[in-house]
C-alpha cells in the first residue's frame, strides 16, 4: 500500500482500523500470551475513553496535577533574529516533571486503576518517561518498576535517583545494546510474566495495538489546546507545525488535531546524529526501512539481515531504532514530512533559544528548534510556525557541559 493508492491521509482521518493498522503499519506482533491481555486493555480503553466520569477525572488531573493548559508562547526575539515566520512555542516544558510525558502517564495510570491493577511497569531511555511514571505511581500508591538500559543508567544518574526518590524500583537492563530498545524488551518480558496484576505504561506511540492509538489520544491534548490558543491569538490556523520525533508521542500529540487541516504543514524532526550520510543517526523515517519490532510494523534502523542496529543521537530521548507506526503512515501518505537535525544543529538551537528567549529546551526539543531555524527565514513575516517545546533542558545540562569540555 502506498500514498497513491490511498490518496492523502486527510479529509476523513480515522486511523487506525479495528486491528490497529495504519495502512500497512502498526498491528499486534507479540507472543500469544500477550494477545489476550492486549485485547483486555483495548476493551477497557474503549470503554473508558468515552466515559464521562473517566474524562472528568482525567481533565481534573491534567489541570491540577500536570498544570494544563500549557501556554502558547510567542518567541518574539528569536523570530526577529531568524527574520521570517512568527514562531510560537507550545510550552510542554512547563508541565509537572518537565515534559509532555506526564500527559500520557496520568491517563494510563487512571486506566490501570479502573482495571484493578496494583503494579505499574515502564521502560525509559533518558528517564523522562520513567520519572513521569514513577510520579503517577507514587500519587496513586501503586508499586512501580522501571526498566532502563545499563548504558542509560550511567548517562542519566540524576533521573535514576529521582525515580528512586519517588519509590520506584529501577532495574538495570544488561542485555543487547543496554539502551532503550532493550529496556522495552525487558518490560515486555516482565509484563508477560506478571500479566495478571501488572499494567505496562508504554511511553510512546509505539508497541502493539492499542498503545499507539491510546498514547496518541492522551497526548492529543497538546494539539487541541494549541489549536484553540492559536485561533484565539491570531484568528487563524498556523502555516506549519514542527516537533521532534523519537518514538513520536509529542509530535503526534501536536499533529493529530490538525491532520484534517490540509493547509497546515507538519514536520517531524528525527535525530540526525552525526549526519544521515554517516550512518550514525537515529532517523528511521529518513533512512530506515519497514520491519517489525516491539509489537508493530514500522520504519526501523536495521541491517540487511533484519537485525536491529545501534542508533546515535546526542539526545537520549531520540535514541531509538523504531518510530510510531502512525508516523510511518503519515510519511507514506505524504501528510507529514520527516527530516533530520544533526547533533550539532540541535546544540546550536539549544544555545540560541536559551540566550534569546531565556528558555532552556530539552535536547530532544532542540531538534525541532533546529529545523525551525532552517525553515522560518524562508517564510513570510506574517506566516505562523508552531513548535512543540516538548521538554525542558535541565536534565541535559550535564550532557551539554561534557560536550563542551566543561566540568560542572
Amino acid at each position, binding site marked *: 500500500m502506498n500514498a497513491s493508492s490511498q490518496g492523502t491521509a486527510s479529509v476523513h482521518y480515522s486511523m487506525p482500523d479495528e486491528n490497529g493498522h495504519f495502512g500497512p503499519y502498526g498491528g499486534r506482533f507479540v507472543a500469544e*500470551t500477550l494477545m489476550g491481555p492486549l485485547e483486555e486493555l483495548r476493551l477497557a480503553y474503549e470503554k473508558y475513553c468515552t466515559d464521562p466520569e473517566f474524562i472528568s477525572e482525567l481533565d481534573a488531573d491534567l489541570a491540577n496535577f500536570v498544570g494544563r493548559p500549557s501556554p502558547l508562547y510567542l518567541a518574539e526575539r528569536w523570530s526577529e533574529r531568524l527574520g521570517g515566520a512568527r514562531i510560537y512555542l507550545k510550552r510542554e516544558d512547563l508541565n509537572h516533571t518537565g515534559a509532555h510525558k506526564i500527559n500520557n502517564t496520568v491517563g494510563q495510570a487512571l486506566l490501570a486503576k479502573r482495571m484493578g491493577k496494583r503494579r505499574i511497569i515502564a521502560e525509559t531511555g533518558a528517564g523522562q518517561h520513567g520519572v513521569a511514571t514513577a510520579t503517577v505511581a507514587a500519587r496513586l500508591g501503586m508499586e512501580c518498576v522501571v526498566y532502563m538500559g545499563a548504558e542509560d543508567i550511567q548517562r542519566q544518574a540524576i533521573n535514576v535517583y529521582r525515580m528512586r526518590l519517588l519509590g520506584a524500583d529501577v532495574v538495570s537492563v544488561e542485555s543487547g545494546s543496554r539502551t532503550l530498545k532493550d529496556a522495552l524488551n525487558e518490560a515486555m*518480558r516482565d509484563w508477560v510474566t506478571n500479566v495478571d496484576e501488572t499494567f505496562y505504561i508504554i511511553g510512546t506511540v509505539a508497541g502493539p495495538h492499542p498503545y499507539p492509538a491510546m498514547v496518541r489520544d492522551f497526548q492529543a491534548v497538546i494539539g487541541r489546546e494549541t489549536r484553540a490558543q492559536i485561533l484565539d491569538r491570531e484568528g487563524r490556523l498556523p502555516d506549519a507545525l514542527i516537533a521532534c520525533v523519537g518514538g513520536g508521542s509529542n509530535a503526534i500529540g501536536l499533529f493529530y488535531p490538525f491532520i484534517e487541516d490540509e493547509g497546515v504543514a507538519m514536520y517531524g524532526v528525527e535525530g540526525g546524529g552525526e549526519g544521515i550520510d554517516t550512518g550514525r543517526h537515529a532517523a528511521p523515517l529518513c533512512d530506515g526501512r519497514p520491519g517489525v519490532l516491539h509489537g508493530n510494523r514500522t520504519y526501523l534502523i536495521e541491517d540487511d539481515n533484519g*537485525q536491529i542496529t545501534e542508533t546515535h543521537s546526542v539526545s537520549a530521548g531520540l535514541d531509538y531504532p523504531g518510530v510510531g507506526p502512525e508516523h510511518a503512515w503519515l510519511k507514506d501518505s505524504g501528510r507529514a514530512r520527516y527530516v533530520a537535525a544533526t547533533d550539532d544543529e540541535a546544540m546550536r538551537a539549544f544555545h540560541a533559544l536559551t540566550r534569546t528567549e531565556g528558555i532552556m529546551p530539552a535536547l530532544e526539543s532542540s531538534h525541532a528548534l533546529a529545523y525551525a531555524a532552517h525553515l522560518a527565514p524562508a517564510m513570510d513575516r506574517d506566516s505562523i510556525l508552531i513548535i512543540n517545546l516538548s521538554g525542558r533542558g535541565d536534565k541535559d545540562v550535564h550532557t551539554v557541559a561534557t560536550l563542551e569540555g566543561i566540568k560542572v
Partner: protein
Amino acid sequence: MSRISGCFQNLRSTGRKALIPYVTAGDPQPDVTVPLLHALVEAGADLLEIGVPFSDPMADGPVIQAACERALVHDVSLHQVLDMVREFRKDNPVTPVVLMGYLNPIEAWGYKDFARAASDAGVDGVLTVDLPPEEAGLLKEVLQEQDLDMIFLLSPTSGKERIRRISAMASGFLYYVSLKGVTGAKKLDITAVAAGLAEIRPETGLPLGVGFGIHDAESAMRVAEIADAVVVGSALVSRIPALQDTPDLIPGKLADTVSEMRRAIDGIRSKRTGMQA
C-alpha cells in the same frame, strides 16, 4: 504428508512421545551447530528446533537472549541458518527441522524468497514467536505454497475462541506455552498444564507439544505423560557458556542431557506397556 506429520504418526503408532530439543543456531560459534544437531538426534531427539538469532528476542529469558548474543557476535544470519540446515540434511534426510525465531529477519529477506530458500534447504516448519494468527495470513499462504508447516503457540491466556482460530491455521503440531512468562522460567505447574491441554484437545487433531519451563528429566517425563511432545530449550542452552572454551565437547555434553530426558520419557511407556524400563 509433511515430514513433521509423518514423524508424529510413527511415534503414535509405537506409543512414544516426541522429544524436541531447541538450540540457537551459531551458538557459541557457527561450526558447532551441525555436529550438535547430529548428536542431539543420536541421543534421541525426534524433531529439532533451531533458533534463528535475533537482536531483540522479546519472548526469551536470559539464557536464550545470551545465546542470541553469542551467535550474533559471529553475525549469524537467517541465510547462514539455512546453510546449516542444508549441511545437516546431507547426512540426515529424516529428522524434521523447525525454525524458531522472530518475524523481522523474515520480513527483511522477503516472505517468498525466504520460504523458497527454507524449503530448498530442508526445513519442515516455521515458528515465528511474534506473529499471532491475526497478522499471519500472508506468511501462512507463502509457507503453504512451499509445503512448510506453520507452527503456532498457544498459551494459558488464549481462551476457547483463539484456540479454535489458531488450530484452524496451524499445521504440523501446536506448541503450548506451559506458563505465563518467557523461555527458561522455572515455575512449571503440571496440573495447570494438564488443564490447559484438556481445553485444547477437543478443538484439534494436531499433536500438542509443551515447552517453556521444562528444565530436567523429571519435568520432561511429567510433561510427556500428558502431551505428545516435550520441547527443551533453555535447559540445554544453559550448559553452553561453561563449554565455550571447549566447543568440541558441546555436542557430547548436550547429547547427555537429551539422552537422560529420552530415558525418562520412554520410561513412562515401559511402565504403561509393562515392559522393562
